[in-house]
């Protein structure tokens, strides 16, 4: 049996909490929330009118005018964040294009533009077909491969809110098997009327900035953005003198087979996947310093994740902080897992556990340490990052510095 460690050698991000790694890092380490009033589209029909929208974004800062119409907002975010990670890693000048792949997680993708096509058609107009170009979630990976001349594996995972966490786990597999020398993996997603209206229709959007694990929390705050990691075999990365930011040690993924929107209430399915992730990484729960929660801020999900923590960490559960950065970056759906994996790597390297913002009071059913009071200094070298999704799709990543 061979053993590999999969190294993270490139980081990239574009989110409401920072348009690049330095800005995102500053927001994360200083606990700065990016949730604010939305103006990307009309949110007046809803009681919740806030979210983590990428503000101050000007496509012309990144793309030539003739390219912009060919890329949806989600495609653009993905191309920018992937570009930062690729440039950061330097892999393109080292490997054959056929040895570098793209593994990405996607969500609503180009739905924002497709909505305009549908709405315009309903009004009797002849909308531009280019509005449909980015509708399918695989478009972003195709654009990344084409723009950066990558010719290895291409795949897009669409398991809603766990998409990009799974894409990172799967990316590590593609390198571990030797199928690829390197992979750019992560996710991109953007706000759309469909998701904003949809979650509002289910009454799971908080009218105030989301408050994970707090008393009185009412639901999510939606967000958007993209994050990508470059993964390589550790030995190869060291051979070429790459900076190593961390490691993807393993991952677990599974289905609850319970309900399309409600989590399995005991937390046992989530706990099973977290344990599978630890087994995949060859580490024990004793080695885990903290857990980046899925932590959406919905009343039920936060309780279930708390229960899962107790099943995994048992008597040690109160010594393992469970934190959520969704109060900072919002719930970025298809990109959530990647943005949070990136935050986990940054925090591990900074020797701190991020704060869960927007505390409203202690909830008796959420009785663990959520770092509500502030970030914590930590010598932990290993953390879990959880992602749960519609359909009961659960992924847990094991990340170390």
């Amino acid at each position, binding site marked *: 049996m061979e*053993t*590999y*460690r*999969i190294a993270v050698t490139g980081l990239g991000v574009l989110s409401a909490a920072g348009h690049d790694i330095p800005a995102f890092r500053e927001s994360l380490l200083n606990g700065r929330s990016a949730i604010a009033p939305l103006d990307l589209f009309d949110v007046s*029909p809803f009681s919740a009118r806030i979210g983590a929208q990428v503000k101050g974004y000007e496509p012309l800062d990144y793309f030539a005018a003739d390219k912009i119409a060919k890329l949806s907002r989600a495609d653009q975010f993905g191309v920018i964040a992937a570009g930062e990670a690729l440039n950061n890693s330097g892999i393109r000048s080292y490997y054959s*294009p*056929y040895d570098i792949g793209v593994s990405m997680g*996607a969500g609503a993708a180009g739905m924002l533009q497709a*909505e305009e*096509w*549908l*709405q315009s058609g*309903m009004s009797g107009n002849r*909308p531009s077909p280019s509005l*449909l*170009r980015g509708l*399918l*979630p*695989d478009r972003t990976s*195709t654009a990344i491969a*084409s723009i950066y*001349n*990558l*010719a*290895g*594996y*291409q*795949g897009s*995972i*669409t*398991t*809603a809110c766990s998409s990009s966490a*799974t894409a990172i786990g*799967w990316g*590590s*597999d593609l390198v*571990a*098997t030797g199928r690829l020398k390197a992979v750019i993996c992560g996710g991109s997603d953007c706000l759309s*009327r*469909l998701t904003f*209206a*949809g979650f*509002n*229709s*289910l009454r799971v959007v908080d009218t105030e900035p989301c408050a994970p694990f707090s008393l009185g929390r009412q639901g999510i705050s939606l967000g958007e953005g993209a994050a990508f990691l470059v993964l390589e075999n550790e030995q190869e990365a060291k051979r070429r003198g790459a900076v190593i930011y961390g490691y993807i*040690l393993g991952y677990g*993924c*599974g*289905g609850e*087979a319970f309900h*399309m*929107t409600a989590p399995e209430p005991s937390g046992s*399915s989530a706990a*099973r996947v977290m344990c*599978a992730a630890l087994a995949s990484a*060859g580490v024990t729960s004793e080695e885990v310093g903290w857990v980046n929660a899925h932590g959406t801020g919905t009343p039920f999900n936060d309780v279930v994740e708390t229960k899962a923590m107790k099943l995994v960490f048992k008597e040690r559960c109160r010594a393992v902080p469970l934190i959520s950065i969704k109060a900072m970056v919002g719930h970025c759906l298809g990109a959530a897992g990647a943005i949070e994996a990136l935050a986990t790597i940054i925090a591990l390297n900074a020797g701190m556990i991020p704060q869960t913002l927007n505390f409203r009071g202690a909830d008796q059913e959420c009785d663990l340490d959520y770092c509500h009071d502030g970030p914590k200094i930590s010598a932990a070298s290993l953390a879990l990052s959880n992602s749960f999704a*519609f*359909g*009961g*799709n659960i992924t847990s990543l094991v990340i170390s510095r």
Partner: protein
Amino acid sequence: MKIIRDNQVVVTGLAAISAAGVGTAALLEALGDKESRLRPVPESILGVPGHKWGKAESFRAADFMPPMKARKFDRCSLFAVAAAGMALKDAVIEPVRLDPTRIGIVLGCGFGGIANSEEFLRGFFRSGAEGMIPMLFPNTVPNAPASNASIEHNLQGPNVTLIQRFCSAETALLMAQRFLEEDRADIILTGGVDELTPVMLQGFRATGQLRGFGGGFGEGAGMLVLERSRHALQRGAHIKATLGQVRTIGRLLPDDGGEGASRLLPAGLPVSLISLSGSAVTEKRLVERLPYAELLETGPLLGRSLAMGGLAMTALVLGLKDGDKGLHLAASPEGPYFAIDFKGGAPVQS
């Protein structure tokens, strides 16, 4: 990360829903008589005659579940739930008798969720917040078909949905194979599922997709039960085929000295049956490397879809006799490309 290389993966079950009908027998009949099952698209949809599509018109959800239950699913989910049930039955697998956490589903899905998204948005655009139908929203996600199938059949193992152009089912099969090799599961249902609606056709026309290789779209599901060979042998399963190498590249670069094509199709592949899927038939650099063998193409018979590889691979396995070697070649115009080896029957014991 553990690398386990001694888990061969075999095919122990198949299912098909297509314009040819419901079940693998209907698919075999279409492959045998080679008569296209595509039918004219009603003029009311595109405003002009002359277009064809491959609707799975003989599919009746009520044949698989109570009508009240069927109402809560989108059409893609109905296909997935029904095909998963047929595939499990074909493989003689009863999830209740096995560990459900060891049975997963990894599915390619092209347009899953689009029909529900459209209906939800139409209500919203027409009547604002009052027009939203909450029950539609959960099934707007592309993973609804695989997740609904997992819920209905109690599949608690790995559950992933992938989309990648015309190679959506192939990307799923690659992941399913790896999950079995890694011992993440004993059994994984894989393949592809897709639906076709009038608005989708209008969208295809608007973007120029009704011309060229995209003409003649179809819908349905092609599902394969993949299983670790040791597990299949232990339970005495009938092994229909053995899955071999899965080779893939994301793009076929110009002026690469043949590197991309040779990575995909190394010299000396002895095969007796080749399945061509997606736009593979138009890829001159690949087609000229193919060995002489009987060709099988489901697209012209049943219609093309992003996840058509599920039906094409099902057809290939159906066409392999014990010991026959088969090759599935799939391509999409902007990539990716897949070449997948199958061998009829069980693996040779060593």
